């Protein structure tokens, strides 16, 4: 009743820890069996090892948090060598989140991962500011988003999901642009750009000045974008933003998501994903649904 098939992904349930909020799963594997999960979106992989931003990288906000990790990761080769073989031992679908400073970086990361059997799909993180394009993220214009998606699709031997930035005037035009050039799915949303100031120093709490806002605070924005994009595209949507419980998952499914990712709430309750998976059947039942298929896009039906 919880299973769902998406391009490249055979999810036993629609619950996927979000990229950057689960590392490569090692810490959580100490707490529960990762095979319980529908899938895992691993921390963004870049071509080279990345140290990321200076600290502090974290700030609390009302019903949310800011982060500016800066894509810290050991680089794709180390991930292939050290993390993926270990993840292979679990019965869950691995999604490789791919990021880069240039389009070439993205493509190279994808090429190196193509031969790896553990990775079942790519998730292009086009929400990070890109040096090559004057600090404007690839995800903020339909043209740039379509271009990187086209290149990724040409290079990839696995389905490509594109994770969009919510910091845009018109999310629908960007979603349509990436669908047009062959994206297999869309992940909505990455973090909102936010900031906090320390009243003692008057300086930003986060060393990087701005950070990405996530958590329940942004859920209404995420639901809105999933809802709008669902009406405009025909490829599946993976919903993410502020999920804390099975009811939140249902709201995303109703809005049009076919699966969801759980981000920062893994920090609040490390058991949130298995808890949701356990509760989802009874929540579906409570609302008269036989399976998650019936829930997907329900708010758009008569």
């Amino acid at each position, binding site marked *: 009743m919880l299973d769902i098939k998406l391009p490249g992904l055979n999810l036993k349930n629609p619950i996927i820890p979000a990229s*950057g*909020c*689960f*590392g490569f799963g*090692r*810490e*959580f594997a*100490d*707490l529960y069996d990762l095979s319980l999960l529908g899938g895992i979106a691993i*921390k963004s992989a870049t071509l080279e*090892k990345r*140290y*990321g931003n*200076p*600290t*502090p*990288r*974290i*700030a*609390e*906000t*009302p*019903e*949310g*948090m800011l*982060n500016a*990790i800066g894509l*810290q990761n050991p680089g794709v080769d180390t991930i292939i060598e050290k993390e993926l073989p270990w993840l292979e031992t679990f019965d869950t679908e691995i999604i490789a989140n791919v990021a880069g400073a240039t389009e070439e970086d993205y493509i190279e990361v994808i090429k190196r991962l193509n031969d790896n059997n553990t990775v079942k799909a790519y998730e292009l993180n086009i929400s990070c500011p890109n040096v090559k394009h004057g600090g404007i993220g690839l995800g903020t214009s339909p043209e740039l988003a379509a271009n990187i998606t086209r290149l990724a699709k040409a290079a990839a031997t696995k389905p490509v999901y594109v994770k969009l930035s919510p910091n845009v005037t018109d999310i629908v035009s960007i979603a349509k642009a990436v669908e047009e050039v062959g994206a297999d799915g869309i992940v909505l949303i990455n973090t909102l750009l936010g900031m906090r100031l320390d009243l003692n120093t008057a300086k930003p*709490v986060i060393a990087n000045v701005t950070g990405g806002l996530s*958590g329940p605070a942004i859920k209404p924005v995420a639901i809105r974008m999933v809802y709008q994009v669902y009406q405009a595209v025909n490829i599946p949507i993976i919903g993410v933003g502020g999920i804390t419980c099975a009811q939140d998952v249902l709201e995303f499914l109703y809005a049009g998501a076919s699966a969801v990712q759980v981000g*920062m709430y*893994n*920090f*609040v*309750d*490390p*058991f949130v994903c298995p808890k949701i998976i356990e509760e989802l059947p009874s929540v579906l039942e409570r609302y008269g649904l036989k399976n998650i298929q019936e829930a997907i896009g329900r708010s758009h039906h008569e």
Partner: protein
Amino acid sequence: MRISQDTIISNDKIAKDTYQMVLQPDEMPVILPGQFVNIKIDGLMLRRPISVCSVDETTYMIIYKTIGEGTKRLSEMSAGKVLDVLEPLGSSFPIHEELDEVLLIGGGVGVPPLYEVAKQYRKMNKQVAVVLGFNDMESKFYDIEFRRLGCSVYVATMDGTSGIKGTVIDCIKEYGLKTDFVYSCGPMRMLEAVNNNYSKGYLSFEARMACGMGACMGCVCKDSKDKELYYRICKEGPVFEIGKVEIVC
């Protein structure tokens, strides 16, 4: 590491803005000196990391200062309330049986994690010198408790209202303390000074944390030599060998 439901046994003010709380986990884990717990506070998003100060058979104790909303709410909680706690977390202060004497240097709420270290060394009847730095006399705490363990205790306050006027380093100079194996925890500037003045021992760090368990990369620090190497303060830390990590104030 586990999620535990910890019952508050007591929660008392022991100095200016400073509270001592005894917690009883549903099942008592092994907690090593220097490790911390991560406490969920109703209505706040992120857990609050607090070092364990002292461990008993079925309970452990923390000391915290009220600096913001989370610690303020903590200070208002009464015995009997149950807290959702991730415990224990992080690395610990290694205890070296071969040492004859150690020097503990604590500043403010960096003092608590050193208490369990003192206990362990005193249990082995080693000489333990403790230098405690506070802002002022009202903020001072645990000097008596360390004395009771049989440590020699030296106090410094920034305003001179108790002990030496100045920093812990001033205090060490003033008293001519020669012990060269240190355990230290406190504000960054203090750790920096300790790091510059000593080459043997351990420092415990703080950082803004999201997960507290190694998953988010929110709390990292760099290796002091290899700038490509980083450590998670919540996982490889909070305790590091002196000189190991780059100190950024």
